Protein backbone atom coordinates (compact mmCIF):
# COMPACT_ATOMS: atom_id res chain seq x y z
CA UNK A 1 0.00 0.00 0.00
CA UNK A 2 1.12 3.50 -0.70
CA UNK A 3 2.05 6.08 1.89
CA UNK A 4 2.90 5.91 5.55
CA UNK A 5 0.20 6.85 8.06
CA UNK A 6 2.56 8.94 10.17
CA UNK A 7 3.60 11.05 7.20
CA UNK A 8 0.00 11.40 6.10
CA UNK A 9 -0.96 12.71 9.53
CA UNK A 10 1.77 15.29 9.40
CA UNK A 11 0.84 16.37 5.87
CA UNK A 12 -2.84 16.56 6.82
CA UNK A 13 -2.04 18.70 9.86
CA UNK A 14 0.03 21.07 7.73
CA UNK A 15 -2.63 21.20 5.00
CA UNK A 16 -5.30 21.94 7.62
CA UNK A 17 -3.22 24.93 8.67
CA UNK A 18 -3.40 26.19 5.07
CA UNK A 19 -0.12 24.75 3.73
CA UNK A 20 -1.09 24.04 0.10
CA UNK A 21 2.33 22.50 -0.63
CA UNK A 22 1.58 19.79 1.91
CA UNK A 23 -1.71 19.05 0.18
CA UNK A 24 -0.02 18.95 -3.21
CA UNK A 25 2.28 16.28 -1.79
CA UNK A 26 -0.78 14.30 -0.74
CA UNK A 27 -2.17 14.64 -4.26
CA UNK A 28 1.08 13.47 -5.79
CA UNK A 29 1.20 10.50 -3.45
CA UNK A 30 -2.35 9.29 -4.17
CA UNK A 31 -3.13 10.56 -7.65
CA UNK A 32 -2.41 7.25 -9.36
CA UNK A 33 -4.71 5.13 -7.20
CA UNK A 34 -7.30 7.94 -7.27
CA UNK A 35 -7.24 8.17 -11.07
CA UNK A 36 -7.36 4.40 -11.55
CA UNK A 37 -10.21 4.02 -9.07
CA UNK A 38 -12.17 6.67 -10.95
CA UNK A 39 -11.29 4.95 -14.23
CA UNK A 40 -12.61 1.60 -12.99
CA UNK A 41 -15.89 3.32 -12.11
CA UNK A 42 -16.34 5.54 -15.17
CA UNK A 43 -14.53 3.50 -17.84
CA UNK A 44 -13.32 6.79 -19.34
CA UNK A 45 -9.87 8.32 -18.89
CA UNK A 46 -11.21 11.87 -19.42
CA UNK A 47 -14.02 11.42 -16.90
CA UNK A 48 -11.61 9.76 -14.46
CA UNK A 49 -9.21 12.71 -14.70
CA UNK A 50 -12.01 15.21 -14.11
CA UNK A 51 -13.46 13.14 -11.25
CA UNK A 52 -10.10 12.71 -9.53
CA UNK A 53 -9.25 16.39 -9.85
CA UNK A 54 -12.66 17.47 -8.63
CA UNK A 55 -12.46 14.95 -5.80
CA UNK A 56 -9.10 16.26 -4.62
CA UNK A 57 -10.45 19.80 -4.57
CA UNK A 58 -13.52 18.69 -2.60
CA UNK A 59 -11.33 16.80 -0.16
CA UNK A 60 -9.21 19.92 0.33
CA UNK A 61 -12.33 21.88 1.20
CA UNK A 62 -13.38 19.15 3.62
CA UNK A 63 -10.04 18.84 5.43
CA UNK A 64 -11.48 20.38 8.58
CA UNK A 65 -13.86 17.46 8.82
CA UNK A 66 -11.11 14.84 8.47
CA UNK A 67 -11.01 12.87 11.72
CA UNK A 68 -7.61 12.88 13.42
CA UNK A 69 -6.06 9.42 13.41
CA UNK A 70 -8.24 8.14 10.56
CA UNK A 71 -6.72 6.59 7.43
CA UNK A 72 -6.32 9.18 4.67
CA UNK A 73 -6.42 6.91 1.62
CA UNK A 74 -9.90 5.38 2.15
CA UNK A 75 -11.24 8.86 2.94
CA UNK A 76 -9.84 10.29 -0.30
CA UNK A 77 -11.00 7.31 -2.34
CA UNK A 78 -14.53 7.64 -0.95
CA UNK A 79 -14.75 11.26 -2.12
CA UNK A 80 -13.20 10.61 -5.53
CA UNK A 81 -15.22 7.44 -6.20
CA UNK A 82 -18.38 9.31 -5.28
CA UNK A 83 -17.46 12.02 -7.76
CA UNK A 84 -16.81 9.38 -10.43
CA UNK A 85 -20.20 7.73 -9.83
CA UNK A 86 -21.92 11.11 -10.08
CA UNK A 87 -20.24 11.78 -13.41
CA UNK A 88 -21.25 8.41 -14.80
CA UNK A 89 -24.82 8.96 -13.61
CA UNK A 90 -25.13 12.50 -14.97
CA UNK A 91 -23.72 11.37 -18.33
CA UNK A 92 -26.51 8.78 -18.46
CA UNK A 93 -24.08 6.10 -19.52
CA UNK A 94 -23.95 2.46 -18.54
CA UNK A 95 -20.88 1.29 -16.72
CA UNK A 96 -18.36 -0.31 -19.01
CA UNK A 97 -14.75 -1.11 -18.42
CA UNK A 98 -12.35 -2.12 -21.13
CA UNK A 99 -9.12 -3.15 -19.50
CA UNK A 100 -6.27 -4.35 -21.63
CA UNK A 101 -3.09 -6.21 -20.72
CA UNK A 102 0.37 -4.92 -21.43
CA UNK A 103 2.26 -6.73 -24.14
CA UNK A 104 5.50 -8.50 -23.40
CA UNK A 105 7.06 -9.82 -20.26
CA UNK A 106 6.03 -9.29 -16.70
CA UNK A 107 8.02 -9.96 -13.53
CA UNK A 108 8.63 -13.70 -13.24
CA UNK A 109 8.19 -14.40 -16.94
CA UNK A 110 11.91 -14.16 -17.64
CA UNK A 111 12.59 -17.62 -16.23
CA UNK A 112 10.01 -19.24 -18.49
CA UNK A 113 10.29 -20.38 -22.08
CA UNK A 114 8.76 -18.12 -24.75
CA UNK A 115 6.04 -20.77 -25.30
CA UNK A 116 5.17 -20.84 -21.59
CA UNK A 117 5.07 -17.04 -21.50
CA UNK A 118 2.75 -16.98 -24.50
CA UNK A 119 0.40 -19.54 -22.90
CA UNK A 120 0.38 -17.63 -19.60
CA UNK A 121 -0.30 -14.39 -21.42
CA UNK A 122 -3.16 -15.99 -23.31
CA UNK A 123 -4.64 -17.36 -20.09
CA UNK A 124 -4.47 -13.92 -18.47
CA UNK A 125 -6.20 -12.39 -21.46
CA UNK A 126 -8.98 -14.99 -21.34
CA UNK A 127 -9.47 -14.45 -17.61
CA UNK A 128 -9.69 -10.67 -18.06
CA UNK A 129 -12.23 -11.16 -20.85
CA UNK A 130 -14.31 -13.37 -18.55
CA UNK A 131 -14.26 -10.74 -15.81
CA UNK A 132 -15.59 -8.23 -18.33
CA UNK A 133 -18.59 -10.48 -19.02
CA UNK A 134 -19.70 -10.38 -15.37
CA UNK A 135 -22.35 -7.99 -14.07
CA UNK A 136 -21.37 -4.42 -13.21
CA UNK A 137 -21.56 -5.20 -9.49
CA UNK A 138 -19.29 -8.23 -9.82
CA UNK A 139 -16.83 -6.45 -12.13
CA UNK A 140 -16.45 -3.48 -9.82
CA UNK A 141 -15.78 -5.49 -6.68
CA UNK A 142 -13.26 -7.75 -8.45
CA UNK A 143 -11.51 -4.83 -10.15
CA UNK A 144 -11.31 -2.89 -6.88
CA UNK A 145 -10.04 -5.76 -4.78
CA UNK A 146 -7.66 -7.46 -7.22
CA UNK A 147 -6.76 -5.06 -10.04
CA UNK A 148 -6.55 -1.92 -7.90
CA UNK A 149 -5.49 -4.02 -4.91
CA UNK A 150 -7.59 -1.97 -2.51
CA UNK A 151 -8.06 -3.19 1.04
CA UNK A 152 -11.49 -4.28 2.25
CA UNK A 153 -12.02 -0.87 3.88
CA UNK A 154 -10.89 0.96 0.74
CA UNK A 155 -13.07 -1.19 -1.51
CA UNK A 156 -16.03 -0.41 0.73
CA UNK A 157 -15.21 3.30 0.51
CA UNK A 158 -14.79 3.22 -3.26
CA UNK A 159 -18.01 1.31 -3.87
CA UNK A 160 -20.00 3.13 -1.19
CA UNK A 161 -21.05 -0.08 0.58
CA UNK A 162 -20.35 -1.55 4.06
CA UNK A 163 -17.19 -3.62 4.44
CA UNK A 164 -19.27 -6.70 5.29
CA UNK A 165 -21.09 -6.33 1.98
CA UNK A 166 -17.74 -6.21 0.15
CA UNK A 167 -16.90 -9.67 1.52
CA UNK A 168 -20.22 -11.26 0.58
CA UNK A 169 -20.33 -9.55 -2.81
CA UNK A 170 -16.76 -10.57 -3.58
CA UNK A 171 -17.44 -14.14 -2.57
CA UNK A 172 -20.44 -14.37 -4.88
CA UNK A 173 -18.57 -12.66 -7.74
CA UNK A 174 -15.66 -15.10 -7.43
CA UNK A 175 -18.03 -18.05 -7.40
CA UNK A 176 -19.68 -16.84 -10.60
CA UNK A 177 -16.32 -16.20 -12.24
CA UNK A 178 -15.06 -19.63 -11.22
CA UNK A 179 -18.13 -21.25 -12.77
CA UNK A 180 -17.47 -19.46 -16.05
CA UNK A 181 -13.79 -20.42 -16.01
CA UNK A 182 -14.69 -24.06 -15.41
CA UNK A 183 -17.35 -24.03 -18.10
CA UNK A 184 -14.87 -22.54 -20.57
CA UNK A 185 -12.25 -25.15 -19.65
CA UNK A 186 -14.64 -28.04 -20.21
CA UNK A 187 -16.08 -26.63 -23.45
Amino acid sequence: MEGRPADDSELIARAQRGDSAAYEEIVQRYQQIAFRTAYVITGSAADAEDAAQEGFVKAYRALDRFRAGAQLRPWLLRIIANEARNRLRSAGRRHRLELRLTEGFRPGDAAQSPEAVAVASDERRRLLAMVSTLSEEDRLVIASRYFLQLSGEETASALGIPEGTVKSRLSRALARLKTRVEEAASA
Partner: protein
Amino acid sequence: MPDLEEQLTSLAATIDWPPTPDLRRALHLPTRGEVSGESRRRGRSLWQTRWALAAAAALLIVATLLVYTPTRDAIAGWLNLHTTFQRTQSPPPSPSPLPSGPLGQRLSLGTQTTLDGAQSQVAWKIKVPSSLGPPDEVYLKLPPSGPSGDEVTLVYAQRSDIPASSETGISVLVTEAQGRVNEQFFQKTLGPDVTIEPVSVGVHSGYWIAGKPHQFAFADANGNPFFDTLRLATNTLIFDDAGTIVRIEGDMTKDQALHIATSLG
Protein backbone atom coordinates in the same frame (compact mmCIF):
# COMPACT_ATOMS: atom_id res chain seq x y z
CA MET B 1 -3.94 -24.35 -12.42
CA PRO B 2 -3.23 -21.66 -9.86
CA ASP B 3 -5.94 -20.51 -7.50
CA LEU B 4 -8.41 -18.10 -9.10
CA GLU B 5 -7.65 -15.33 -6.60
CA GLU B 6 -3.93 -15.75 -7.28
CA GLN B 7 -4.54 -15.42 -11.00
CA LEU B 8 -6.61 -12.28 -10.50
CA THR B 9 -3.93 -10.78 -8.30
CA SER B 10 -1.29 -11.56 -10.91
CA LEU B 11 -3.39 -9.79 -13.54
CA ALA B 12 -2.95 -6.51 -11.67
CA ALA B 13 0.72 -6.33 -12.68
CA THR B 14 -0.09 -6.71 -16.37
CA ILE B 15 -3.04 -4.36 -16.79
CA ASP B 16 -2.37 -1.58 -19.25
CA TRP B 17 -3.87 1.36 -17.34
CA PRO B 18 -4.26 4.73 -19.04
CA PRO B 19 -1.38 7.02 -18.04
CA THR B 20 -2.07 8.87 -14.80
CA PRO B 21 -2.28 12.63 -15.44
CA ASP B 22 -0.29 14.97 -13.23
CA LEU B 23 -3.21 16.16 -11.14
CA ARG B 24 -0.97 18.15 -8.83
CA ARG B 25 0.09 20.37 -11.70
CA ALA B 26 -3.46 20.87 -12.91
CA LEU B 27 -4.80 21.48 -9.43
CA HIS B 28 -5.63 25.05 -8.58
CA LEU B 29 -6.51 24.88 -4.94
CA PRO B 30 -9.20 27.27 -3.81
CA THR B 31 -8.76 29.39 -0.75
CA ARG B 32 -10.17 27.40 2.13
CA GLY B 33 -13.77 28.43 2.75
CA GLU B 34 -14.57 29.58 -0.75
CA VAL B 35 -18.02 28.76 -2.06
CA SER B 36 -18.33 25.08 -2.75
CA GLY B 37 -19.69 25.56 -6.25
CA GLU B 38 -16.45 26.88 -7.65
CA SER B 39 -14.68 23.58 -8.15
CA ARG B 40 -17.74 22.14 -9.85
CA ARG B 41 -17.82 25.02 -12.25
CA ARG B 42 -14.12 24.62 -12.93
CA GLY B 43 -14.55 20.88 -13.56
CA ARG B 44 -17.24 21.57 -16.09
CA SER B 45 -15.16 24.23 -17.74
CA LEU B 46 -12.37 21.70 -18.35
CA TRP B 47 -14.83 19.56 -20.25
CA GLN B 48 -16.38 22.47 -22.03
CA THR B 49 -12.96 23.75 -22.99
CA ARG B 50 -12.10 20.47 -24.70
CA TRP B 51 -15.29 20.61 -26.77
CA ALA B 52 -14.99 24.33 -27.37
CA LEU B 53 -11.50 23.88 -28.80
CA ALA B 54 -12.69 21.07 -31.04
CA ALA B 55 -15.71 23.13 -32.14
CA ALA B 56 -13.54 26.13 -32.88
CA ALA B 57 -11.18 23.97 -34.93
CA ALA B 58 -14.08 22.44 -36.84
CA LEU B 59 -15.66 25.82 -37.58
CA LEU B 60 -12.34 27.23 -38.69
CA ILE B 61 -11.85 24.35 -41.09
CA VAL B 62 -15.37 24.68 -42.50
CA ALA B 63 -14.93 28.43 -42.91
CA THR B 64 -11.61 27.89 -44.65
CA LEU B 65 -13.19 25.39 -47.01
CA LEU B 66 -15.90 27.84 -47.94
CA VAL B 67 -13.67 30.87 -48.43
CA TYR B 68 -10.38 29.71 -49.87
CA THR B 69 -11.09 27.61 -52.97
CA PRO B 70 -7.44 26.83 -53.79
CA THR B 71 -6.92 25.00 -50.51
CA ARG B 72 -10.28 23.27 -50.37
CA ASP B 73 -9.15 20.04 -51.97
CA ALA B 74 -6.18 19.72 -49.68
CA ILE B 75 -8.20 20.33 -46.55
CA ALA B 76 -10.98 18.00 -47.69
CA GLY B 77 -8.35 15.36 -48.20
CA TRP B 78 -7.11 15.72 -44.63
CA LEU B 79 -10.61 15.23 -43.34
CA ASN B 80 -11.60 12.49 -45.78
CA LEU B 81 -14.32 14.82 -47.08
CA HIS B 82 -13.17 14.96 -50.67
CA THR B 83 -16.08 13.13 -52.22
CA THR B 84 -18.82 14.89 -50.30
CA PHE B 85 -17.54 18.41 -50.91
CA GLN B 86 -17.03 17.80 -54.61
CA ARG B 87 -20.61 16.62 -54.84
CA THR B 88 -22.07 19.75 -53.25
CA GLN B 89 -19.99 22.04 -55.46
CA SER B 90 -20.69 20.61 -58.90
CA PRO B 91 -22.47 17.32 -59.28
CA PRO B 92 -21.14 15.29 -62.21
CA PRO B 93 -23.30 15.51 -65.34
CA SER B 94 -23.80 11.78 -65.42
CA PRO B 95 -23.19 9.18 -62.73
CA SER B 96 -19.78 7.63 -62.91
CA PRO B 97 -19.84 3.86 -63.27
CA LEU B 98 -19.77 1.99 -60.00
CA PRO B 99 -16.39 0.51 -59.16
CA SER B 100 -16.08 -3.22 -59.11
CA GLY B 101 -15.58 -5.01 -55.83
CA PRO B 102 -17.18 -4.44 -52.42
CA LEU B 103 -19.57 -1.48 -52.22
CA GLY B 104 -18.02 -0.04 -49.08
CA GLN B 105 -14.40 -0.24 -50.15
CA ARG B 106 -14.26 3.37 -51.43
CA LEU B 107 -15.87 4.82 -48.31
CA SER B 108 -13.11 4.25 -45.74
CA LEU B 109 -15.43 2.25 -43.55
CA GLY B 110 -12.60 0.15 -42.14
CA THR B 111 -11.80 -3.50 -42.70
CA GLN B 112 -14.40 -5.67 -44.36
CA THR B 113 -15.52 -8.54 -42.18
CA THR B 114 -18.66 -10.50 -41.30
CA LEU B 115 -21.23 -9.90 -38.59
CA ASP B 116 -19.76 -12.69 -36.49
CA GLY B 117 -16.24 -11.45 -37.17
CA ALA B 118 -17.13 -7.92 -36.08
CA GLN B 119 -19.03 -9.15 -33.04
CA SER B 120 -16.02 -11.16 -31.87
CA GLN B 121 -13.88 -8.00 -32.00
CA VAL B 122 -16.10 -5.51 -30.17
CA ALA B 123 -17.17 -5.55 -26.53
CA TRP B 124 -20.73 -4.43 -27.21
CA LYS B 125 -23.70 -6.07 -28.93
CA ILE B 126 -24.01 -5.16 -32.61
CA LYS B 127 -27.66 -4.55 -33.47
CA VAL B 128 -29.08 -5.42 -36.89
CA PRO B 129 -32.33 -3.91 -38.21
CA SER B 130 -34.73 -6.76 -38.89
CA SER B 131 -36.65 -4.58 -41.36
CA LEU B 132 -33.61 -4.54 -43.67
CA GLY B 133 -32.49 -8.10 -43.08
CA PRO B 134 -28.88 -9.24 -43.04
CA PRO B 135 -26.43 -6.60 -44.31
CA ASP B 136 -24.75 -7.07 -47.66
CA GLU B 137 -21.38 -6.01 -46.27
CA VAL B 138 -19.96 -5.39 -42.77
CA TYR B 139 -16.98 -3.20 -41.89
CA LEU B 140 -15.06 -2.80 -38.67
CA LYS B 141 -12.96 0.24 -37.86
CA LEU B 142 -10.59 0.14 -34.90
CA PRO B 143 -8.55 2.96 -33.31
CA PRO B 144 -6.63 5.00 -34.29
CA SER B 145 -8.59 5.44 -37.55
CA GLY B 146 -11.81 4.58 -35.71
CA PRO B 147 -13.12 5.89 -32.41
CA SER B 148 -12.07 4.46 -29.08
CA GLY B 149 -14.50 1.61 -28.46
CA ASP B 150 -14.47 0.74 -32.21
CA GLU B 151 -17.05 1.32 -34.96
CA VAL B 152 -19.09 -1.12 -37.03
CA THR B 153 -20.86 -0.24 -40.30
CA LEU B 154 -23.55 -2.35 -41.95
CA VAL B 155 -23.91 -1.77 -45.69
CA TYR B 156 -27.17 -2.40 -47.50
CA ALA B 157 -27.28 -2.34 -51.32
CA GLN B 158 -30.68 -2.31 -53.00
CA ARG B 159 -33.63 -2.20 -50.62
CA SER B 160 -37.24 -1.68 -51.67
CA ASP B 161 -38.54 1.90 -51.43
CA ILE B 162 -35.09 3.33 -50.62
CA PRO B 163 -33.18 4.37 -53.74
CA ALA B 164 -29.54 3.39 -53.93
CA SER B 165 -26.98 6.14 -54.49
CA SER B 166 -25.85 6.25 -58.11
CA GLU B 167 -22.32 6.98 -56.93
CA THR B 168 -21.98 4.30 -54.28
CA GLY B 169 -24.67 1.75 -55.14
CA ILE B 170 -25.69 1.83 -51.46
CA SER B 171 -29.24 2.28 -50.16
CA VAL B 172 -28.59 2.41 -46.43
CA LEU B 173 -25.62 2.62 -44.11
CA VAL B 174 -26.09 1.73 -40.44
CA THR B 175 -23.12 2.76 -38.30
CA GLU B 176 -22.74 1.87 -34.64
CA ALA B 177 -20.09 3.15 -32.21
CA GLN B 178 -19.62 3.46 -28.48
CA GLY B 179 -19.93 7.00 -27.18
CA ARG B 180 -22.40 9.73 -26.50
CA VAL B 181 -23.81 12.71 -28.34
CA ASN B 182 -22.80 16.22 -27.37
CA GLU B 183 -25.82 18.02 -28.79
CA GLN B 184 -24.48 21.57 -29.03
CA PHE B 185 -21.24 20.42 -30.60
CA PHE B 186 -22.57 18.03 -33.22
CA GLN B 187 -25.11 20.59 -34.41
CA LYS B 188 -22.30 23.04 -35.10
CA THR B 189 -20.34 20.51 -37.14
CA LEU B 190 -23.23 19.52 -39.41
CA GLY B 191 -23.02 22.61 -41.61
CA PRO B 192 -25.68 25.03 -42.86
CA ASP B 193 -27.47 22.85 -45.46
CA VAL B 194 -29.43 20.78 -42.99
CA THR B 195 -32.42 20.88 -40.70
CA ILE B 196 -32.31 19.13 -37.36
CA GLU B 197 -35.39 17.76 -35.65
CA PRO B 198 -35.40 16.02 -32.26
CA VAL B 199 -37.12 12.62 -32.46
CA SER B 200 -37.82 9.67 -30.18
CA VAL B 201 -36.71 6.18 -31.11
CA GLY B 202 -38.58 4.00 -28.65
CA VAL B 203 -37.32 5.16 -25.26
CA HIS B 204 -34.22 6.78 -26.76
CA SER B 205 -33.71 10.37 -27.90
CA GLY B 206 -32.36 11.11 -31.32
CA TYR B 207 -32.17 13.59 -34.18
CA TRP B 208 -33.50 13.51 -37.70
CA ILE B 209 -31.08 15.42 -39.92
CA ALA B 210 -32.54 16.27 -43.31
CA GLY B 211 -30.40 17.68 -46.10
CA LYS B 212 -26.78 17.07 -46.93
CA PRO B 213 -24.87 16.71 -43.69
CA HIS B 214 -21.18 15.96 -44.14
CA GLN B 215 -19.75 15.39 -40.75
CA PHE B 216 -20.80 14.15 -37.37
CA ALA B 217 -18.87 14.55 -34.11
CA PHE B 218 -19.45 12.70 -30.89
CA ALA B 219 -17.68 11.84 -27.63
CA ASP B 220 -16.05 8.46 -28.06
CA ALA B 221 -15.81 5.73 -25.41
CA ASN B 222 -12.98 7.63 -23.71
CA GLY B 223 -14.89 10.91 -23.75
CA ASN B 224 -12.73 12.47 -26.45
CA PRO B 225 -14.23 14.29 -29.46
CA PHE B 226 -14.26 12.10 -32.58
CA PHE B 227 -15.08 13.42 -36.06
CA ASP B 228 -16.74 11.03 -38.46
CA THR B 229 -17.72 11.55 -42.07
CA LEU B 230 -21.32 10.94 -43.09
CA ARG B 231 -20.48 8.95 -46.20
CA LEU B 232 -23.72 9.28 -48.15
CA ALA B 233 -24.22 13.00 -47.29
CA THR B 234 -27.96 12.47 -47.22
CA ASN B 235 -30.79 12.28 -44.69
CA THR B 236 -29.53 10.78 -41.46
CA LEU B 237 -31.12 9.55 -38.24
CA ILE B 238 -28.84 9.64 -35.21
CA PHE B 239 -29.74 8.35 -31.79
CA ASP B 240 -28.12 7.15 -28.60
CA ASP B 241 -29.12 3.59 -27.82
CA ALA B 242 -27.99 3.52 -24.18
CA GLY B 243 -24.32 4.16 -24.86
CA THR B 244 -24.22 3.04 -28.49
CA ILE B 245 -24.57 5.82 -31.04
CA VAL B 246 -26.48 4.54 -34.06
CA ARG B 247 -26.51 6.41 -37.39
CA ILE B 248 -28.81 5.44 -40.23
CA GLU B 249 -27.95 7.16 -43.51
CA GLY B 250 -29.89 6.93 -46.76
CA ASP B 251 -32.14 8.72 -49.22
CA MET B 252 -35.23 7.95 -47.14
CA THR B 253 -38.02 9.67 -45.27
CA LYS B 254 -38.05 10.20 -41.52
CA ASP B 255 -40.72 7.52 -41.10
CA GLN B 256 -38.65 5.02 -43.07
CA ALA B 257 -35.59 5.77 -40.92
CA LEU B 258 -37.59 5.46 -37.69
CA HIS B 259 -39.04 2.16 -38.90
CA ILE B 260 -35.51 0.83 -39.46
CA ALA B 261 -34.35 2.17 -36.09
CA THR B 262 -37.15 0.56 -34.12
CA SER B 263 -36.46 -2.79 -35.78
CA LEU B 264 -32.89 -2.88 -34.45
CA GLY B 265 -32.26 -5.85 -32.24
